[in-house]
């Protein structure tokens, strides 16, 4: 029983096999892609493996502390930031093998030409609680 974060990137991941920008797909292909993602999440809900999902807007700002009594410094948005997260899903599964299998399934979402995108998804374990028995 462990939780994993599946991270989907707009940019920064290695190139997908079927690497065509979404705005160059047909509207039907966009719809089919979204349907696949929704169906995937629904299946996880029915399995009892779903924890959370969230898509993120691409325009983010960088913010940092600028000293006592001063407003924070803001910068961006940067159109060319190397790494850009598109969204995430959190799953709760019995094994790491299961997390990998699910990520593989999600990566098969259809894209241009109705073919799987084969996009790279990042799988990151969440920290759990320390076990009581450690010796």
């Amino acid at each position, binding site marked *: 029983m462990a939780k994993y974060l599946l991270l989907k990137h707009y940019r920064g991941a290695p190139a997908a096999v079927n690497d065509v920008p979404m705005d160059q797909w047909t509207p039907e292909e966009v719809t089919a892609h979204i349907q696949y993602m929704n169906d995937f999440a629904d299946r996880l*809900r029915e399995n*009892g*493996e779903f924890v959370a999902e969230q898509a993120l807007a691409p325009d983010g700002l960088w913010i940092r502390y600028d000293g006592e009594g001063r407003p924070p410094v803001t910068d961006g948005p940067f159109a060319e930031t190397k790494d850009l997260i598109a969204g995430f899903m959190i799953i709760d599964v019995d094994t790491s093998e299961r997390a990998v299998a699910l990520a593989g399934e999600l990566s098969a979402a259809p894209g241009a030409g109705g073919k799987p995108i084969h996009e790279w998804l990042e799988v990151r374990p969440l*920290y759990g609680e320390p076990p009581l028995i450690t010796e």
Partner: protein
Amino acid sequence: MTAQLDEALLRGLVPGVLGVLVRRGADFAAAEDAVQEALVEAVRSWPADPPRDPRGWLVTVAWRRFLDATRSDAARRRREDVVDVEPAPGPVSEVDDTLHLYFLCAHPSLSPSSAVALTLRAVGGLTTRQIAEAYLVPEATMAQRISRAKRTVAGVRLDSAGDVGTVLRVLYLVFNEGYSGDVDLAGEAIRLTRQLAGVIDHPEVAGLLALMLLHSARRPARTRADGSLVPLAEQDRALWDTRLIAEGVDVLQRALARDRLGEYQAQAAIAALHADARTAEETDWVQIVEWYDELVRLTGSPVARLSRAVAVGEADGPRAGLAALAGLDPSLPRHTAVAAYLHERDGDRALAARRYAEAARSATDLRERDHLTRQAARLNAQRGG
């Protein structure tokens, strides 16, 4: 009777009540729903109007709820014939009912997380929401996990013999991976194991109960006020719960006297030796190593071999510990942390600091990571200063 409901007492009645419904012919999933409804009703009405026979009350209300549900189901499907289920006289004891329920909820066809969820709900009587909160998942997700688990075991006959080992593994998981939310899962695991020990006479059930009691005794000492972990050697032993230790040792001794050793008794024996030491320095590491030898012999577990290397390091010195570690797979969880500890005791602080930093990167929980990071930082600061 006070207005405050004794929730543990109430939930202690759950397996027996559920067993009665199933024995009367109710299918498991429907019976379980009906018992949950009866529990909700009990929580509502008992404080003002306590029943004279709580178990009988629950059976009556749950059975009525089951019949109502079956009737409305049947009406919907126009199958009136299924409602003529009359309570059969019960030749089977409540003890057997309870035991069979444990076996059913830990059935090998269930995944570990499903078995844990079903056990907590059907044997423990926790609500779906409580279980969801304990495991930090949405309530809808936990509801799905439980109803799928119920469907999986729906065809399993309650009278088929089960393996107590599968039940113990599930209870061990509930105890050991109990999250620290509002629901005290470790406490719940102890309650369920104690209840199991009441219906089955098995030295390993007693062994697991002793193991849980002895580790639970250390809980007040294992975290600081800020939540950070305190290693065993640094714990304030005055904070250990002597009542739990005494009970754990007593349960263990009676189990060991049966001369049917198993992995839980061996682990409990190790915990008992730690509990027996007034200071970390007084720990009988030689005897602990002997118990680890037994544990390795019983399980062949690489994790047991790793813990054994730590004990060997204490009993025979860090070089011996490192030698015991040398043959083990470096990808084992905590392997690097053990190596760091042994290298520090061997006087190689530079290597120990590097190993602690590596171990921190591969930790699977935040408090362990922070502890290991502090160890690395402490050694680096000593070397720099």
